[in-house]
């Protein structure tokens, strides 16, 4: 199976959370994963309730079931560039001179694509890194990647840069990174909600990735809500059986200690708002149904994570990781 998992998704779909849950899921059974952040938001640190991550790999969690470990790294483009210069060209003082001149700023913020080359390059280096015994240091690397609209460009940047710099070390580096990204070692996953815009962006994003020859992994449908009532049921409650529902409601509320419900006519007043909420629910279900049909038309492995009503905390993250494993994400 793939070792570099690139997690993308439209803003607001929970991309960072899913990437973290995936890193936890893949670390089970004594494995070691590296969770990489490239957008400088420190979202991983907040999720794991630790202080901001430095530019340094450090252990941040133990996998469910024990034995496995999740390490994390927030990649900083400027530091990564200086690293490279140091590693490949032994540019100790010249590196500092470059920085003084503003060349590093230029390279990481303005030079086309160099920033993205550095970020993907660092992740690929972690994927390929081996220890003295020849074993991979990380079994899996999970990247919390840029959003769907930019992912193909982000991953494909090395191709473009290899075309710009037709010879020399940048060319070679870009090509080496591209070989990893286009191999079956890599899988790009998309996180989506069952809403119109995220689903559309996912479909478009996958088509773009495929056109660029980049390996598509699976789709994670996040924040799925339980289906509680369907349309027919809601219409029956609203029309045919409205009186019976009002009566049952009054009885149930009184029976559970919500005193005076019947006297105040509370139950009667509650029926219409409750039915209105149920109608919104079924309307949403219909939209979700259309979204699911479109996602399943992609023919990709699909995973579903339900909405954590109180927001995602550490416990919720582990629950999501368990759920991903149960649905076979690590197989």
């Amino acid at each position, binding site marked *: 199976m793939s070792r570099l998992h690139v997690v993308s998704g439209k*803003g607001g779909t929970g991309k960072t959370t899913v990437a973290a849950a995936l890193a936890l899921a893949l670390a089970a059974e004594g494995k070691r994963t590296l969770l990489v952040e490239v957008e400088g938001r420190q979202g991983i640190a907040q999720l794991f309730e630790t202080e901001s991550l430095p530019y340094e790999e450090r252990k941040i969690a133990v996998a469910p079931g024990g034995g496995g470990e999740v390490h994390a790294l927030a990649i900083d483009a400027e530091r990564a560039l200086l690293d490279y210069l140091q590693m490949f060209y032994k540019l100790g003082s010249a590196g500092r001179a*470059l920085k003084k001149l503003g060349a590093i700023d230029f390279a990481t913020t303005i030079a086309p694509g160099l920033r993205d080359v550095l970020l993907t390059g660092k992740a690929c280096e972690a994927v390929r890194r081996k220890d003295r015994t020849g074993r991979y240091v990380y079994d899996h690397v999970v990247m919390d990647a840029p959003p769907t609209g930019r992912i193909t460009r982000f991953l494909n940047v090395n191709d473009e840069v290899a075309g710009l710099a037709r010879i020399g070390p*940048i060319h070679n580096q870009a090509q080496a990174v591209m070989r990893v990204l286009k191999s079956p070692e890599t899988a790009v996953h998309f996180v989506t909600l069952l809403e119109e815009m995220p689903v559309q962006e996912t479909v478009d994003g996958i088509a773009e990735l495929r056109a660029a020859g980049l390996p598509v992994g699976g789709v994670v449908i996040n924040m799925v809500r339980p289906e509680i009532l369907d349309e027919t049921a809601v219409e029956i409650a609203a029309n045919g059986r409205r009186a019976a529902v009002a009566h049952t409601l009054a009885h149930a509320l009184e029976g559970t200690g919500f005193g005076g419900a019947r006297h105040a006519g509370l139950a009667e*007043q509650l029926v219409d708002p409750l039915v209105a*909420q149920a109608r919104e629910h079924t309307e949403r279900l219909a939209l979700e149904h259309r979204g699911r049909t479109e996602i399943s038309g992609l023919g990709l492995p699909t995973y579903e994570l339900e909405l*954590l009503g*109180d927001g995602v905390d550490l416990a919720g993250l582990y629950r999501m990781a368990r759920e991903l494993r149960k649905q076979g994400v690590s197989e």
Partner: protein
Amino acid sequence: MSLDTASVLDVDPVLDNPRTRIVVCCGSGGVGKTTTAAALGVRAAERGRKVVVLTIDPARRLAQSMGIDELDNVPRRVPGIDSSAGGELHAMMLDMKRTFDEIVEAHADKERARAILENPFYQSLSAGFAGTQEYMAMEKLGQLRARDEWDLIVVDTPPSRSALDFLDAPGRLGSFLDGKFIKVLMAPAKIGGRAGMKFLGVGMSVMSGPLNKLMGAQLLRDVQTFVAAMDTMFGGFRTRADATYRLLQAPGTAFLVVAAPERDALREAAYFIERLAAERMPLAGLVLNRVHGSEAARLPADRALAAAEALLDGSLGAPGEVLATAPMETSENLDCGGIVDRDSGQAASRTVDAPGTDAPTVPSTPESGLPQPAPSGGSTAQDFTAQDSTARLTAGLLRLHAERMRVLARERRTRDRFTALHPEVAVAEVAALPGDVHDLAGLRAIGERLACQAAGSTTADDTAAGKVPEARAGTTG
């Protein structure tokens, strides 16, 4: 509580004020920024202003709803706007490569322009690598403002990796252009490789080696040629970048930070607000999209859930009997998995749900999420079915309500945290819609919700205070 102390953002005076010339909508991705910008444009136009909306990468259907499915960098009049107040709406999508090309064409002579446009380094730069979109959005804003054809420009900001990138863009470009690096880069090209190396001094002798090594001679040459060709334009770039930055600080500009009532989105919003203050940029307020409300807010989640459970397990006795197992506290910290877990086999059945199986015609099937309790004696079979399904129907309504109330409580907590940190920021809430917006009517409705805060914001207040919400039902919008 803090909700009462937080001030309410009234967008109409901002939109109506003839001195407001630019409204910038910013915020993290996925919070409805583009929709908000479009809705404000529609509203301002129908209130009599001549408006142009500059969108960046809008969702296809939203763009179509405004009649701009072409990406041609030219503002187009949006049909279907009520112009009885004398306003009109124009809309355009940013084409960053076109914008960049236009700058080159406008500021360099023909030959030089061609040299730049054909340079491979330029071609990659202008096609949208990190940062270009931000520069070009600001450049376009400057251009639109300079044309002075519109009373009001509403601008949507790019979906940056950081919502702040567009603020930094002009400054970063300026500092780069003033930097020494560019002089070093330009030196060899100007000298043309002749015996001029000795004039370059220490800087270049340290630099030429590493740069050559790092970039490769050919790329370095491309970059140098590009920089040399751009040389005459740099002054103009810097002047315009500075002018745009000042434009953003001017009193005629209003920043609206857009967010959803979620932790990450509001954290970004708070960060943004602090940054705007540091840059002395005028903040009008926060637009909080997709806020949930309930007309039945006085029924707390735990009560609704207890009643639903009692109905389902058949333990409900005669009226007045109190269930010992029902939670009595008024806190709302119900475990979010609770509803599903207590629901026999429901979670398992949903994860394998194939499309097409979730629309049963009979409300009592397991797919509708209602477990079927075993029948007990005492009534005829038919009698029981009717009663039983009414019980389950009612339980379903109650469970949906409990779920809604939990969402409401979470949103409220998140919002209160923000308000506590930034009590000075005026807030406008926009109620959540079940679906996406893709026509003018939808945009109009959003604008209406945005403007009519008195009615819209009561739902959350009622939740906590336990007030009666019914009285307000008719006053919305």
